[in-house]
């Protein structure tokens, strides 16, 4: 549903406002990389703008610090509807190494609703491009929640009998 909404609401270009909410600048440098001619996000219509009032997308990088949280709320209120929020980097996705620190609120989704997550520390420029392409509906999602468990006892018994056999003594 979100994909259809995106296709309808953003038919041409996404203008991005980049909000650094306490990041170490690693993710910010990778975001700048994406805008260089080598990675060239402008072919998808991505453009950095200087004011949230001009933006369609808010790119959040960094675990949201206590100090910046109210500013982030005001920033998001200034963005006109419809808007997307993309969390770039492990810090914005879940707090990173500071997830339980007293000074941060532990990720962008603790403060504002987040639509897309791009994990990585920092994410490769290709990973950010993949996130953009995912938001535009060009590629399909590749990760799902993994539920793993060890082999069942019956399979284990077959394995043991193959290696010499177990008999009731």
């Amino acid at each position, binding site marked *: 549903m979100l994909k259809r909404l995106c296709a309808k609401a953003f038919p041409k270009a996404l203008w991005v406002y980049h909000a650094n909410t306490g990041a170490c600048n690693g993710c910010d440098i990778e975001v700048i990389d994406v805008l260089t001619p*080598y990675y060239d996000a402008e072919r998808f219509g991505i453009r950095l703008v200087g004011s949230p009032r001009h933006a369609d997308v808010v790119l959040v990088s960094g675990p949201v610090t206590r100090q910046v949280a109210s500013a982030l709320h005001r920033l998001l209120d200034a963005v006109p509807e419809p808007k997307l929020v993309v969390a770039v980097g492990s810090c914005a996705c879940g707090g990173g190494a500071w997830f339980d620190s007293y000074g941060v609120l532990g990720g962008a989704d603790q403060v504002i609703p987040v639509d897309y*997550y791009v994990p990585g520390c920092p994410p490769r420029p*290709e990973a950010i491009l993949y996130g953009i392409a995912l938001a535009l509906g060009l*590629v399909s999602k*590749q990760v799902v*929640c993994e539920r793993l468990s060890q082999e069942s*006892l019956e399979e284990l018994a077959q394995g043991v009998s193959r290696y010499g056999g177990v008999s009731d003594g």
Partner: protein
Amino acid sequence: MLLSKLREALICLKAGRVTLPYPSAPHDPSPRFRGKITVDPDRCFGCGGCANVCPAGVILIHDTDQHTRVLEFQWRRCTYCGRCEEVCPEQAIHMSQQFETATDRPEDLVIRLEVFMGPCQRCGRCFPPPTPLDRMMVSGFRSGGNGGRQ
């Protein structure tokens, strides 16, 4: 003056296309790149050494009952340092090359692993049984019995 400008234009023409054709063509990172973690469930025996060294506290361990230990990798906040891969005694954790991990649901960024354990007879806490045969002994497995259970 004009000639130098023309030379610059020629240099620009000679450079050709530099943009990476990434989302349309696949891209392989360098071999030393550390991407999303993968866990081999049959190698892990639940020692918890990875949870000890993880700087971001990605790996949560809890025992649901006396036979099951659950390792939950909440790798949405993973910093890809690779310490868990280094300390794992059984090489169960591996940093894969996968970087295409963007998603719209945070629940996708979780790996949940259930490890079969044996209870200690004295304190009741879980411990890893050393061999597959011991694993079957602690759960009361008999090879020729009714349905394999005691």
